[in-house]
């Protein structure tokens, strides 16, 4: 397909070329810029959802809801010891009361809540594999033997709505990329038709001298592909600058889900390939448009 870049100079002169001379490269630059941002957002959301989901899917929390503090502490120690003996359990940690108070601080404030509000005991359990229904059942029965007040809750369940939201955003970003690709193709169709009209006379001459549709189409494809590539590189540079700035700001926030928003090197490769994809899209669209238009001429 890249053979179109290597057509001889005398053939290139048949259709005069001017780099960045028309609106086409700039339209494509804007489209690619937006596509880079949408793709980066989609990929970042996807990676964040996967990262958080992977992290939480092998963790469960055991709650022991018991008003009597002594009973609660004894039961939590017994349950923790029992869980440590299971094959599927990798790590067990009984959360100290101080840490539990810190967790509820955003809702109940910093004042000493004393014994008026009994806090449940929390046991953070890390599993050796993902927690499916069978694993949860095994944990629940092990805990229930020692404490009827024990409840096993998968950690992933707590953040499921957030993950769903992030996945929705990811699909919206993907949809935007497709819409922008369609808009780019439409711009190329308009540009190709305009170029055909501008060079109508030359095309007529080449036809009557025995030129084929393919020969004529190659001339326009090359020109449009180069315009698209130049526009694409400009769009990529602009988009990459914005992503870098946003990345700096997000890393400064340094917390939770926001911190997990990042781009792997594979994602960066995908983003870097967008101008090439844009060029190929422009070239194929131009080819179809031009071949279609030439077929209407004898």
């Amino acid at each position, binding site marked *: 397909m890249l053979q179109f870049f290597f057509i001889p100079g005398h053939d290139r002169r048949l259709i005069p070329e001017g780099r960045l001379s028309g609106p086409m490269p700039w339209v494509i630059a804007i489209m690619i810029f937006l596509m880079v941002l949408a793709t980066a957002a989609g990929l970042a959301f996807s990676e964040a959802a996967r990262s958080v989901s992977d992290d939480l899917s092998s963790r469960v929390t055991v709650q022991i809801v018991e008003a009597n503090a002594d009973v609660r502490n004894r039961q939590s120690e017994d349950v923790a010891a029992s869980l440590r003996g299971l094959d599927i359990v990798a790590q067990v940690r009984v959360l100290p009361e101080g840490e539990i108070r810190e967790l509820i601080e955003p809702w109940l404030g910093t004042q000493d809540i004393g014994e008026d509000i009994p806090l449940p005991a929390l046991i953070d359990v890390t599993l050796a594999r993902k927690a499916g229904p069978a694993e949860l059942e095994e944990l629940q029965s092990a805990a229930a033997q020692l404490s009827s007040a024990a409840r096993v809750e998968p950690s992933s369940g707590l953040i499921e709505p957030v993950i769903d939201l992030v996945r929705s955003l990811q699909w919206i970003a993907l949809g935007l990329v497709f819409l922008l690709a369609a808009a780019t193709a439409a711009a190329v169709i308009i540009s190709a038709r305009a170029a055909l009209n501008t060079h109508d006379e*030359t095309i007529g*001459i*080449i*036809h009557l001298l025995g030129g084929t549709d393919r020969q004529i189409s190659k001339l326009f494809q090359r020109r449009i592909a180069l315009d698209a590539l130049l526009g694409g590189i400009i769009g990529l540079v602009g988009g990459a600058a914005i992503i870098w700035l946003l990345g700096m700001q997000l890393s400064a926030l340094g917390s939770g889900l926001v911190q997990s928003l990042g781009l792997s090197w594979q994602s960066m490769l995908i983003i870097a390939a967008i101008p090439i994809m844009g060029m190929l899209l422009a070239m194929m669209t131009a080819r179809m448009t031009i071949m279609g238009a030439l077929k209407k001429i004898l």
Partner: protein
Amino acid sequence: MNEIVQFENVGLRYGAGAETLSDLSFTLYPGSFYFLTGASGAGKTSLLKLLYLSQRPSRGVIRLFGEDAVTMPRARLPGFRRRIGVVFQDFRLVPHLSAFDNIALPLRVAGVREKDLETPVAEMLDWVGLGDRASARPATLSGGEQQRVAIARAVIGRPEILVADEPTGNVDPDMAVRLLQLFEALNTLGTTIVVATHDIHLLSKVPGAQMMKLEKGSLSDPTGSLRHPPIPQDTTV
């Protein structure tokens, strides 16, 4: 003798108007020289368009190089067009190309390598007296010079048929004679020549040329030799 072009009851109509060409039936033979005459508006250019495959007829049959040109698939037309040289009335040079590149165009379209086309193009430029204007663009050439470039472009590929629409209209009498000599030389090499002109003085300059006359879109046949099969010269009225 095998015919190179054969028209049978050909008619041409643009849009819904009256027929521009009606009931054309004639045969052209390889290596012959034809003049197509007629008043302005008689349909000469339309007939030439059918010959150089710029237009399909509204009716009738056209056989070109032994094949039906009317029903021929579009994809095969370029190959046939390369066998036909055309001198357009309005020259139709590519405005942003030099005289050299305009003349080289048919060879490049046919895929001739660059090193193989430089000598013939330079020789052709010399022949039409434009050796020193090789790099000039059409806009900087006079009408006569443009016409010579157009003629050079039409003959550079040694076509089997050369179709010329008023090829001497913008050149001085000396150059007109030289161009006709070029056409005759090509004709001697086997090229069939069809020259549309309203200059009846040209006709006498090519002995042995046959004449086709168009009147209001219909062909009269003063020599009888255009018919298929041709009428022997001694029975011609």
